[in-house]
């Protein structure tokens, strides 16, 4: 009874002052007194004292003990700024050569708010003109003001540890996983809803699956069904040991009712039925649906050159393949690449080298999806891409990206694109 009263007295003391205000030393003194009076055994005192300290630590980390207002604790602000110099050399089919040099800026600002323990809302704005594949905006126009657009706005509901529902204008990596931007430019923020299922089977094996229904375009002018995309992507990650892991996914991305539908003005004009002349908007109606089967694989090795005495943090080898099942010819594509150096460039001296070889046949992928820097985001091309990123300091880096791309339909019309970026994250 005496012991119970002692523990209750301690609980009352802790509760009255709030865990964060009870200093570890004060708890220890109180526990010591309770031991001296024979109310608690030394073992019980140790247990209560240590568990109390752990609880305080946890509450501080959760922000509950913070003196900041609740809305500040529940909101995360993040963003980045990129200044780019870009030079491009085009050689058209008629041997007409053109060099263009431009300065560009990309600003992204995102806010993620915790509505409750299971629900998160994310909102992001970015520079841009509405092009789904770019948040860059070029300098010029006699110092004209630049436009900022809604980049994403989504809700994420984690109903169970293994079940998450995301809806709205979502981040691409909430929609599917891809080791390269062969099919989807990483700037795209898909619209619709995605169910994410995940389960860690054991410490080495994790399984997950994304099921998505995406709105591609609306059609209010006719009785036709609007284009939709349905995505299913089972994924598996396996850790062979602390240094070697493998991630694989097989997605089926079915773009329905695209056939016969007018293209986006931002399309690259490289699919059958679509035309784009110079910098004018793309026009035309799609001739096929795009039912893309896409296996993807990534092998990650930590400290791959340890045996040679070289300190290289990671090596990644990756690749993916795509085939449009709705088309019998000109329907496949692939990318292969590697990356080594630091997994993330976060501080001075961090570096990362990356190379990707990519090929897309004419109707392998919907021409409003692939990386817009790789031959203007067109299909019917082959491309080498090499990039180097070097850390200048905390959260700031310099990046150099070089693309050498050419057409695989008709004249080669090669293009060389060089980008120098100064990246800043906050």
């Amino acid at each position, binding site marked *: 009874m005496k012991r119970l009263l002692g523990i209750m007295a301690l609980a009352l003391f802790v509760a009255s002052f709030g865990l964060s205000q009870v200093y570890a030393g004060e708890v220890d003194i109180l526990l010591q007194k309770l031991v001296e009076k024979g109310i608690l055994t030394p073992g019980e005192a140790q247990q209560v004292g240590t*568990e109390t300290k752990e609880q305080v630590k*946890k509450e501080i*980390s959760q922000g509950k003990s913070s003196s900041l207002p609740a809305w500040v604790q529940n909101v995360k602000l993040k963003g980045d700024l990129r200044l780019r110099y870009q030079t491009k050399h085009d050689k058209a089919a008629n041997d007409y050569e053109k060099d263009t040099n431009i300065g560009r800026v990309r600003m992204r600002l995102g806010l993620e708010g915790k509505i409750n323990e299971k629900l998160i809302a994310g909102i992001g704005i970015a520079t841009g003109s509405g092009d789904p594949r770019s948040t860059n905006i070029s300098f010029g126009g006699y110092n004209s003001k630049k436009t900022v657009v809604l980049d994403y706005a989504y809700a994420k509901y984690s109903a169970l540890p293994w079940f998450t529902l995301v809806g709205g204008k979502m981040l691409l990596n909430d929609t599917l996983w891809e080791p390269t931007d062969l099919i989807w430019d990483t700037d795209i923020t898909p619209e619709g809803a995605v169910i994410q299922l995940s*389960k*860690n089977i054991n*410490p080495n094996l994790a399984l997950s699956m994304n099921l998505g229904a995406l709105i591609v375009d609306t059609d209010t002018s006719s009785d036709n069904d609007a284009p939709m995309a349905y995505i*299913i992507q089972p994924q598996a990650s396996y850790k062979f040991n602390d240094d070697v892991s493998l991630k694989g996914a097989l997605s089926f991305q079915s773009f329905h009712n695209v056939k016969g539908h007018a293209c986006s003005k931002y399309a690259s004009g490289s699919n059958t039925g679509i035309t784009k002349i110079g910098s004018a908007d793309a026009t035309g109606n799609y001739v096929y649906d795009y039912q893309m089967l896409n296996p993807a694989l990534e092998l990650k090795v930590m400290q791959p050159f340890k045996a040679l005495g070289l300190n290289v943090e990671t090596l990644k080898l990756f690749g993916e393949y795509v085939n449009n099942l709705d088309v019998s010819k000109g329907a496949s594509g692939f990318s292969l690449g590697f990356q080594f150096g630091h997994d993330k460039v976060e501080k001075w001296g961090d570096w990362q080298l990356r190379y990707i070889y990519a090929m897309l046949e004419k109707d392998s992928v919907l021409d409003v999806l692939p990386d817009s820097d790789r031959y203007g985001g067109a299909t019917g091309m082959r491309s080498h891409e090499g990039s180097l990123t070097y850390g200048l300091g905390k959260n700031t880096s310099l990046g150099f990206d070089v693309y050498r791309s050419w057409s695989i339909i008709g004249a080669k019309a090669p293009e060389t694109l060089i980008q120098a970026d100064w990246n800043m994250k906050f």
Partner: protein
Amino acid sequence: MKLMKLFTMAAFVVGIALPCYAEKIVMEGSTTVLPIAQKAAEVFMQKNTDADISVRGGGSGVGIASIIDGTCDIGNSSRPIKDSELEKAATNGKDIRAHVIAMDGIAVVVNPANNLNALSKKQIKDIYTGAISNWSELGGADQKIVVISRDTSSGTFEAFAELALDKAKVRPDALMQASNQAVASTVARTPGAIGYVGLGYISGDVKAVAVNGIIPSRETVLNNKYPIGRPLFMYTNGEPKGLVKELLDFIKSAEGQKLVETEGFVGLK
């Protein structure tokens, strides 16, 4: 429309199939806590024939990562959870609860013929890192110090390296032993030897020395006065329920704490 049906069916099948994995209790983590977990699981399963408990090692980091990721029911750890791990847990929506289940006290032992009765933590570090190699440098006999250590894969080694050596490397000529008992036996028969063992392995064959003036004992470990001691944890996600709660209650009970003592640790009862 067919495709929609396919999606709904796939989601339903996966949704039903995935949770079916969480039937038995999985304990994972610290190799120091491992013998306690194994012994407790063995006795608990004898008493509760329905219980199916799987106990795995992997280290404290693995145990904590697993409880955050939800791949185990109890994450064993010989160190407190780090702030970065708590932040990750909070991001993952996990409510990590700490349960102290025992204390780990490591006694520094010397051959009984040694006339020294006390050492400072710094002296112990100097001996184990090779800065001091003769007992005469510490006021003892002119005798070479024979350094005995646990093998590097043991939790006791890990704890000793952290608590007594500030993670400094043990001298390369130290004799590595595979168990607490082997360390105690080697120290007992080797003049000039020094070793370290769990508190439960102190016997008349070896002499436990005071560290920083504190004699290793159950009491000095429990009141945090002895410098080479630490709590051992089992972490759960949220307040334990059902069989997990029953198992933890058993480990914390007088019977469970007796098992803790038989494994060479300091019980809390």
